[in-house]
């Protein structure tokens, strides 16, 4: 693949000098990262390296201790009420898919997809349902519209969760280890869907993943993180096959250079 859009367009999301700690444990320590419009970035690294925290900060699920978040070019300031509302508006353009799906268990599949478009975007019920059915067909679950989440397999749940996030028509999607909770034989059906989305849409994607081959396949850029810092980043071929840092080589199980 030969995409160059990442170097022409402005960033959709940026973290500047981001610091985040839980109690005494510093997870991010002055992290700088930026995702360009339309760019697909794969975040790799050992567990506890701050990859998921990065996503959660962008989504506003955790407060930042110090530093700055910018979304779609606008800085977020959540120290006051107006700033929080502004941040919430910007985050409506960001979607997220979680490791453990988090479907709403009390709603049928179709209503999982329709709730936010109707109540947040103000879509009419028929419009939201029509859109939801299209999305379910896209993830191969057209026949599950009336099912309850508890009736689905893990792979099916995750595909519904992806469709639910897509229903909000986000410009940036955050995927947090979306195949890690799945049985091995269910991983591929989710990757197929992700691949298809990557090929069909112009959406920016930031993925935390342990699937190196998948990362190599769809990412424009691979970022290797450890200890809350970026150790190495670049095109997938370079980072995954010929990393310059000894730590990256060790993580990928490559022989020392």
């Amino acid at each position, binding site marked *: 693949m030969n995409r160059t859009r990442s170097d022409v367009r402005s960033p959709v999301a940026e973290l500047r000098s981001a610091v985040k700690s839980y109690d005494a444990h510093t997870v991010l320590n002055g992290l700088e990262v930026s995702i360009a419009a339309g760019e697909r970035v794969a975040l790799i690294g050992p567990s506890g390296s701050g990859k998921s925290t990065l996503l959660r900060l962008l989504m*506003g699920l955790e407060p930042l201790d110090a530093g700055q978040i910018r979304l779609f070019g606008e800085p977020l300031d959540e120290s006051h009420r107006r700033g929080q509302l502004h941040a919430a508006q910007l*985050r*409506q353009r*960001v979607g*997220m898919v*979680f490791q453990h799906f*988090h479907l*709403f268990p009390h709603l049928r599949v179709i209503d999982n997809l329709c709730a936010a478009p109707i109540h947040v975007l103000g879509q009419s019920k028929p419009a939201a349902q029509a859109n939801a059915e299209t999305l379910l067909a896209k993830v191969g679950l057209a026949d599950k519209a009336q099912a309850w*989440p508890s009736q689905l397999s893990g792979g099916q749940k995750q595909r519904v969760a992806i469709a639910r996030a897509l229903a909000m028509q986000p410009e940036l999607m955050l995927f947090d280890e979306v195949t890690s909770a799945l049985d091995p034989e269910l991983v591929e059906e989710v990757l197929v869907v992700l691949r298809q989305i990557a090929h069909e849409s112009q959406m920016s994607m930031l993925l935390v993943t342990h699937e190196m081959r998948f990362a190599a396949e769809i990412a424009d850029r691979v970022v290797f993180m450890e200890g809350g810092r970026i150790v190495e980043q670049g095109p997938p071929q370079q980072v995954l096959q010929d990393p310059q840092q000894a730590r990256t080589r060790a993580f990928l199980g490559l022989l020392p250079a």
Partner: protein
Amino acid sequence: MFDLDYALSLLPILAQGLLVTVQATILGMLLALLLGLLLAIARRSRLRPLAWASAGWIEFVRSTPLLIQLYFLYYVLPETGLGMPALVTGILALGLHYSCYCAEVYRAGIEAVPRGQWEAAQSLGLRGPRLWWLVILPQAIPPQLPALGNYLIAMFKDTPLLSAITVMELLQIARISAAEQFSYLEPLTLVGLIFLLLSLIAAQGVRWLEARYAPVERTS
């Protein structure tokens, strides 16, 4: 000895008292359910003063006897110009008192909703009342229905306290009849039996709720 004819002659008037008792229970419970929910949500508010006020109010009401609250609302409040009919005062007191217990029940239900549900809703842009109404409460309340049902029964059994502020509920009517006839055995026995019967039926309902909303495996 127990005079059956006298007991039967009391039934029509006791039925009137029962009507008042049931009315006080149902309206009091509706008030408690609604107010309790607001207190539970306020208690989780990010606005600290609101959360503290709610927690403090719950502790205060739960730590003072219902009878004193009734007296206060009926005999002291009118001095400030806020006089209400006895039954209205009784319903208000029952509702206020039990709302604090209901709030704790709701709180347990809300805390049992997994954090991931909040996060998923937030990531979809659902916030404020919509978040509560669409995602949190439908998951938080059903498992707590049996506990709320038990408070309904408890409140029902507390309604005789309303006789202390002149409400013509079941016990009050029984007591008046008894005083007129100088015979306490029949009216008080009947009142006891009526409470027993209705409580048993309600307990059956709670058992049904427990079976219906038994904690199921919640995979989302």
